[in-house]
C-alpha cells in the first residue's frame, strides 16, 4: 500500500531528516505545502522563521533553528527525548505543531547553562553519572528542570512516576533518580 511504503521510505531515508518538514507529500497535487511566518522566543532569543504548517516544534528546533540538543527518539510521544519547556512547562515537542506556538517561549537544553556555568540539574547529572549513551539525557534534564518547577517540594519517592515520561534504553534510572534527588535538595536548600 502506498501509505505504508511512504512510511518505510521516509524511515529508511534517515531520521535526521525532519519527517514533517522534508518528507515529500505522497501526492503533490493533493498537498501543496502551506507555510506561515512564525515568531518564537527560543532560549531568550527572538527568532522569526517561515515554517511548513505541518512541521512539529521538534523538527523546527532541530532542522530550521539548528538546535539539535533536543532529540528525536520515537516521534510519537512515548520516549520523552524531545522534551522542551514551553512557556515554562515541560512538553513533548514531537506532539505539537510549531505553527501553534506563535509568540511562545521555548527553552531547550541549549538554553539551561549560564555561559560555561552548568544549570544545577546538568551539574547533578554529571556528578551522579546520570547517563550512559547520552541520547535521552537532554530530554531527561529538561524534564527534570520542569519537574522541579512544578514540584518545589519534590520527595525522592515521587521521582519515578513524575519522570515516567522519559525512557532510558540504557536503564541508567538509578543514577538519574539520584541526580534529580540531589538537584531537588539543592534547590530546596538554596544554592
Amino acid at each position: 500500500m502506498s501509505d505504508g511504503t511512504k512510511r518505510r521510505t521516509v524511515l529508511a531515508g534517515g531520521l535526521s531528516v525532519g519527517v514533517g518538514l522534508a518528507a515529500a507529500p505522497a501526492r503533490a497535487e493533493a498537498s501543496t505545502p502551506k507555510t506561515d511566518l512564525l515568531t518564537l522566543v527560543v532560549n531568550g532569543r527572538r527568532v522569526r522563521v517561515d515554517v511548513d504548517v505541518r512541521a512539529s516544534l521538534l523538527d523546527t528546533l532541530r532542522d530550521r533553528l539548528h538546535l539539535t540538543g533536543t532529540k528525536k527518539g520515537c516521534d510519537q510521544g512515548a520516549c520523552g527525548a524531545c522534551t522542551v519547556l514551553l512557556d515554562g512547562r515541560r512538553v513533548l515537542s514531537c506532539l505539537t505543531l510549531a505553527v501553534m506556538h506563535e509568540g511562545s517561549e521555548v527553552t531547550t537544553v541549549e538554553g539551561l547553562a549560564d555561559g560555561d556555568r552548568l544549570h544545577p540539574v546538568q551539574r547533578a547529572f554529571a556528578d551522579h553519572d546520570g547517563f550512559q549513551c547520552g541520547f535521552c539525557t537532554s530530554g531527561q534534564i529538561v524534564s527534570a528542570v520542569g519537574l522541579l518547577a512544578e514540584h518545589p517540594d519534590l520527595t525522592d519517592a515521587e521521582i519515578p512516576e513524575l519522570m515516567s515520561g522519559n525512557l532510558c534504553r540504557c536503564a541508567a534510572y538509578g543514577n538519574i533518580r539520584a541526580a534529580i534527588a540531589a538537584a531537588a535538595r539543592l534547590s530546596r536548600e538554596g544554592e
Partner: protein
Amino acid sequence: MDTFDYRRPASVREALRLVAGHPDAAFVAGGTDLVTLLRDRVRTPGRLVDINGLPLDGLRWSRDGVRIGALCRNAVDDPRLAAAYPVLVRALRSGASPQIRNRATFGGNLLQGVRCPYFRLPEFACNRRDPGAGCAAAGGDGRLLGIFGTSAACVAVHPSDCAVALVALDATVVVEGTRGTRRIPVGDLHRLPGDTPHEEHALRPGELVVAVEVPARPFAARSTYVKFRERASYAFALASAAVAVHSEHGVVRDARICLGGVAPKPWRAHAAERALRGERLDAATVEAAAEAATAGARPRPDNAYKVELVRGVVRRALTELGEK
C-alpha cells in the same frame, strides 16, 4: 502528513464558523493525539482549527459542582478538585506522562482516538478509519481489545481514564454549535460501534466541546480509580475501575462502578452497582460486586485475562473505599 489550511480563531463563534460547511475541518487543542494521527495519515483534515486561543480554560465552582473548561489541561493540580472528586484526579494522574498532561485537554481527552494498533496503521483494514474496509483486528492480535460492547465491525476499546471517572461522577459535556448549546451526559458521548464504528461520538458535525460539568453528588468524595497496566508507570489501561460509594449508617445507599480499557466506551457496571445497594461494604459484598462487574463479558481467547482483571480492579477499589 497532508497539508492543511491552519486557522487560529479568537472566539467560539469564529471557531464554529470556520468549521461550518467544512466537513473536512478538525479542531486541535493539545494535539497530543491528533498530531500522531495526522502524521500517520489516519486523519487527513483539509482545515485545522486551533482552539488554544479560546477562553475555555479553568475551573468554575458553584453549589452544583464544578464546571471544567474544555481547554483545562490534564495536569490540573487543584487541591479542591482532588478533595471533592478523588476518582477524577487519580484517573488523570494515571493517564499519561507529565509532559503529555501539560498539553492534553479535557475536551481532547474525551474525543481521543482508539489505540487499536490496526486503527493507527493505515496499512491495515479498519472500519473505524475507513468505513466498510473490514477489521484486521478480528483475525489479529486481540490482547488489548474489548470484552464488552464490541461488534463484528470493531473490537477496539476507548483509551481514556478521565472519561471513565467522569461517567462514574454523572458528568455532562457542554457542546456548542451554530444552532446553540446542548448538554450530553458523558455516558452517552461515545457510541458503541455496531455496524458504524466510524460514528464515534454523539457530537453533530461542527459542534465543539466547551466544558465538562461535574455535579455535586453524595458519593463523589468517597471515590477512587484503580488501573492495571503493563508496567508500573504511564501506560494505557488493560482494565480499570472508577468507583464511588455513598453509605449511611454503614449501609450503601448509592454507588457508581465504571470500567475502562475493556469496552468501546466507559462501561457502566450496573449489575455490580445493584449488588452494593442496601448492603454493608464487607468482603462478601465486595466479592459479589466484583463478580457482577463481569456480567455480559464476551472475551476472545487472547483477551480472556481481562475478565479476571475486571474482578481485580473492582475488588481493589471497593476494598480501598471500605477501609475509609
